[in-house]
């Protein structure tokens, strides 16, 4: 038994943030019914790997909501749901007759989560956003980079994942609240506000001290620690950037520094007065980084990591996706990356990464690949609404469940 078995989630989300929230809940056993229409997939398009990656462990239902009959089925499903989640523009579910007010009057325990870009209300409420938009507007792009540059930012859609994590947290909290009160409720999650929240201490520093944080490369913004950076190593198999090898070294204490000096075989420069304390090393971190790079450039990153860690120095190889999948012994030991099948209708060979939560009593080891849109029509509509196979087939033939 998985911990969320018995929870029914009607999922109208698309792209990444919403589907990631419901993927986590599905991995933990919730019955997540993913609603799509084959005719209106848009960014959910099953032609690419995005949809298969973020929609495993969900059941795939097709509803073409341009039909009144499909909207009626949507509402009946919402009346059976514990959770309804969407990231449409504000008001879409209301126009379909299945908004929170409509549904909660008959299903008082229902929880609605809307994961819009900007939240409901306010002058930017209707703004269109993807994660790179949120990164830019929230300050994350400006601050993730090096001094003098504001065109770097985070190299992947980080905020989509974090918004999904907050969405899952919100749903589970509302379920706990409902246990106590019997009442559901509506949750308005703004992906923009999630992003801004991540800069909490920096914003407080601005409001309290008038200090505006600046991009600092690999330095910690508020701790005078050095060395604290990424250093080029030997072993690149080509001139391509992707084949470069790097190691991250983070000395957070005097002990870390002393151990690193030992690992480097006590070079003469390490005794320089510029490096005699943490604050001096931080002050002269440019010179220090250059000297450490001279040391690392002739060494294999993996070897350096092993001798640093053996000596008690925090250090790690900068791993790319190929390293994670093919070489990472820690992920391999836990079978974190796995093949789901050879002949998946969406992707052929199907793969997945595990939920990174290990439950001792309710292990979550069930991984069903994402299904083509509508593949679970009969099962879902039978389980949730008691429709017969014939009724489902008639709906499909009429173009309502496609």
């Amino acid at each position, binding site marked *: 038994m998985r911990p969320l078995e018995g929870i029914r989630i009607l999922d109208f989300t698309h792209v990444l943030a919403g589907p990631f929230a419901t993927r986590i809940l599905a991995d933990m056993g919730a019955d997540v019914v993913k609603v799509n229409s084959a005719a209106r997939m848009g960014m959910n398009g099953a032609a690419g790997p995005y949809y298969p990656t973020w929609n495993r462990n969900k059941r795939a239902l097709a509803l073409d909501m341009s039909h009144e009959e499909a909207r009626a089925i949507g509402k009946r499903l919402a009346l059976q749901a514990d959770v309804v989640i969407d990231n449409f523009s504000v008001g879409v579910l209301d126009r379909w007759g299945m908004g929170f007010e409509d549904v909660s009057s008959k299903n008082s325990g229902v929880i609605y989560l809307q994961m819009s870009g900007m939240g409901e209300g306010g002058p930017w409420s209707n703004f269109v956003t993807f994660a790179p938009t949120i*990164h830019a*507007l929230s300050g994350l792009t400006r601050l*993730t*980079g090096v001094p003098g540059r504001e065109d770097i930012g985070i190299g992947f859609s980080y905020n989509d994942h*974090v918004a999904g994590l907050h969405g899952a947290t919100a749903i*589970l909290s509302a379920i706990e609240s409902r246990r106590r009160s019997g009442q559901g409720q509506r949750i308005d999650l703004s992906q923009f506000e999630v992003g801004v*929240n991540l800069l909490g*201490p920096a914003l407080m520093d601005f409001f309290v001290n008038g200090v505006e944080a600046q991009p600092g490369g690999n330095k910690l913004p*508020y701790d005078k620690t050095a060395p604290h950076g990424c250093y080029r190593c030997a072993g690149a198999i080509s001139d391509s950037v992707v084949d470069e090898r790097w190691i991250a070294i983070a000395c957070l204490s005097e002990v870390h520094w002393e151990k690193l000096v030992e690992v480097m075989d006590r070079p003469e420069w390490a005794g320089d007065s510029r490096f005699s304390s943490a604050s001096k090393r931080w002050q002269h971190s440019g010179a220090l980084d250059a000297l450490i790079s001279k040391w690392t450039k002739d060494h294999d990153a993996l070897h350096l990591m092993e001798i640093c860690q053996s000596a008690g120095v925090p250090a790690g190889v900068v791993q790319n996706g190929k390293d994670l999948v093919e070489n990472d012994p820690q992920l391999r030991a836990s079978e974190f990356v796995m093949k789901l099948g050879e002949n998946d209708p969406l992707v052929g060979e199907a793969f997945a990464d595990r939920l990174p939560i290990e439950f*001792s009593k309710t292990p979550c080891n069930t991984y069903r690949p994402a299904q083509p849109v509508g593949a679970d029509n009969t099962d879902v509509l039978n389980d949730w609404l008691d429709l017969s196979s014939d009724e489902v087939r008639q709906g499909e033939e009429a173009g309502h469940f496609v």
Partner: protein
Amino acid sequence: MAKEHEKVMAKKEGALHGVKIIDLSDERAIYGVKLLADLGADVVRPEPIEGYPLRARGPLRDGEQSAGSSLWHAFFASNRRFFAVDLDQPEGRAQLDRLITQADIVITSDGAFGCDVLDIEDIRLRNPSLVSVECTSFGESGPWRDYLAPDLVAGALGGSVATTGDVDTPPLKCFGELNFVVSGAYVGIAALAALRHARETGEGQHVHVPVHHCIASCLEHVFMWHWYNEMLGNATDKALERRGSLHWSNAYVVMQAQGGSIMVTPTPDVDAQLVWLIEEGVAADLLDPKYQEIENRPEFMRRMMEVLREWVGSKDVQALFFDAQEHHAPYGWVLPLDRVAENPQLDARHWWQEYNSGGGDFKGPGNPYQFSETPWSMGPHGGIGEHTDSVLSEIGWGDER
């Protein structure tokens, strides 16, 4: 109207009201405990008599160390009750034991204060529904189990660092410690999921959350680039190099405009973007029929980004951002922190909250979600051991004497 609404909400309880949590987390999990505390859980954070070292983390109020001056701590250790306890003494260890015996959830990070004196399974014999969530860097086994991994190292090994930075910079971490935000959030989810099971069955359990795996699970394209690179027409290798702000799809990138930078994308409606460029008289050769051929679409996108870059360079950044949003184009103005702090959307949603720490009030971040019936709230930030007496009283410490 807004004030009336606030009054009504103030009388209501948070979503997690009544959930008792003991917080023995460090940086790796503390964000998740914050999420639960801010949602109304009763979170007790044990700390050494002299205070937890994290109370000294910057940024600091007025830049100086003093009681309650850590803004980092005010943010991440919000809404806690602080319980000072001497774990070198048998009495202190017994107090912590009893505290957890009466809790719903205990959250630990290996090596954090109190974690090495606990026998969770022994406590579970007396509190069978106890949920224990342990956050470690790499898991309970494996060759890297004991590796030291502050945020930068965790991000390097977890894959986020390789993905960030540009060809002429080193691989870069995200600002602050955002890898630990991910692991912390997973800890919160793990706790709530196991709590749900305990509520349904009475059965508690131990839950493990490895930071390394959490980071690897939140890398957007990285795994699909490896697994499905043949489906991605522009994938030539099993990994993608760091390349500044250019998204893996080649369709999002930060460009220089007049007066600032802006993230520009012709997606999701490329045709609408093309019409906009035609209206502006800058469509160049984008209407060339060759671009209608499916095999030329990657070249079309590359050319589209070239045309956009030239056009954007002539535009005022602020006007372009709002014009783009009028066109339903998800451009994003690259804002510095002072502009974020005065954002009209956040003001209109009354997003900012008042914090109180060290005797002073100040403005800070608000809630990442708004619940219609169970308010999110920010209470005053407690000093070292401020709630020790009330915590001991609640667990009945001394009643038997």
